[in-house]
């Protein structure tokens, strides 16, 4: 399975990374090199094998359903490039 130029542009959109036209060919050859490398997994017989979901045998812990943190909005937005009244500011998304 090799990717073509259109696929590179589509992956860029899905990943929300701007891919300039001048970069498409470079990405295409690098991604295909990596996909070519991982292709050897097709040799492995995985019939009847469960995909790994947890590397150590553990059940996810549960905790009491109660608020344990909060009430510090100013600290949460303290690193924001743009904020106002403890809200994150973004370009207008609704007309």
């Amino acid at each position, binding site marked *: *399975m090799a*990717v073509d130029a259109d*696929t*590179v542009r589509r*992956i*860029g*959109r*899905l*990943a*929300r*990374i*701007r*891919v*300039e036209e001048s970069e498409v060919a470079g*990405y295409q050859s*690098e*991604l295909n*090199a*990596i*996909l070519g*490398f*991982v*292709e*050897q*997994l097709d*040799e*492995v017989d*995985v019939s009847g*094998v*469960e*995909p*790994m*979901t*947890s*590397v*150590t045998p*553990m059940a*996810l*812990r549960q*905790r009491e359903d109660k608020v344990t943190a909060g009430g*510090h909005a100013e*600290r*949460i937005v*303290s*690193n*924001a*490039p*743009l904020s106002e009244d403890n809200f*994150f500011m*973004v*370009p*207008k*998304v609704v007309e």
Partner: protein
Amino acid sequence: MTDLTKLSLAATRDGLSNRDFSALEVTEAYLGAIEKANPKLNAFIEVTAQQAREMAEQSDHRLNSRDARPLEGVPLGIKDLFATKHVHTQAASHVLDDFKPEYESHVTQNLWNDGAVMLGKLNMDEFAMGSSNETSHYGPVVNPWRAAGSNQDLVPGGSSGGSAAAVSAWLCAGATATDTGGSIRQPAAFTGTVGIKPTYGRCSRWGIVAFASSLDQAGPIARTVEDAAIMLTSMAGFDPMDSTSAEIAVPDFAAAVERGVKGLTIGVPREYRMDGMPEEIETLWQQGLEWLKAEGATVKDISLPHTKYALPAYYIVAPAEASSNLARYDGVKYGLRVSGKDITDMYELTRAKGFGREVKRRVMIGTYVLSAGYYDAYYVRAQKVRTLIKRDFERAFADGVDAILTPATPSAAFGIADQDMNADPVKMYLNDVFTVTVNMAGLPGIAVPAGKDHRGLPLGLQLIGKPFDEETLFAAGRVIERSAGGEFSPEKWW
């Protein structure tokens, strides 16, 4: 007067507790060493001198009032991947420009609770993606080691290249590091230092910038096996804030260091004998087995048949998890923002500018293998192969193997801006061929300096252990360290 920066972490601790010198003196010695060396080595990207002096003064109070904690007054370097409250934490990425967390990672908090002193933040590959520390936004780290008769700059390995270089060049008594595919063990091998990736779940991931969450683990890089054991004892421990943190007691790892290997069975996996592997690596491996045998261990040939599939499976699983983890860097909550004509434009431009080439490549691969129509063929298949890799190890351990000895890396350190590695991403990835299996199976692995190549550069051996049996790795690692007996300190040129 002795150079305080040349002492091991254990000797530093003893000297401090005997009051042979003060914590402030040790800290000043390291700050001086960093100031001289860093323009050449680029290991630190932020030096927290004032904070270090304040922490050292508090340690001196404790030491004077006989109230010392396990790492009281010991100066450490912290990989930039660990959140340190109000201090530079950027995973060496442009996208996290000026980010200063409001909280402290669990692992670093454990170290400060035990009295350690923070010298600053260490350089690394961007988001821990790399094997040469060349993908950092802050430029490459230079390995303190040089080949005999050469002044070529070499890489320290990666992604914990700053950690390994700083420990090797006497710029800190020990350093925190992280390992997703070999990022502790490969740089340790390249710099003649000791690095251990503990069992998945041993150290909390809370407050560590996430790369591939099912593989990431923190661990120490130190100058000796004992130093690594002391550090890991402080770093490890259960944390309810990490849902994969293991609720299991942390032993005093240092107590296991001199336990020896008498009666242990050491496995030798035939699949680690790779085509084209330099003969000196093979010779070193045999030498390591002889050392362990001489101390009473039994050596047993074993087979880990899915070894060759670990690296390709890793290059599906790790980028897939990374593409998801790195979705949060969008120019809204923290770090860099590049304005665009609308919000999508802003996301795309921010991420294009903020991420370096290797990070973008991996996010794109991860996005592709998780995209509609490809998920089963790539991601699910890779997770099935991962089950098989883990099963290989389980069989070996069930057959009576206590630990497995392998080379740590397929070569010694290579040059900065290596043409072959830069031209082909897969060539760079092959650096992790011996270490990545361990992450895929969640096992502990330690790299210990064991010899040098024909150019005088350090080479390491790796020991792989059973889940939560780091103690055997420290014991066997100590036998390798003691038997190798060599001097694993670079000749100072900086």
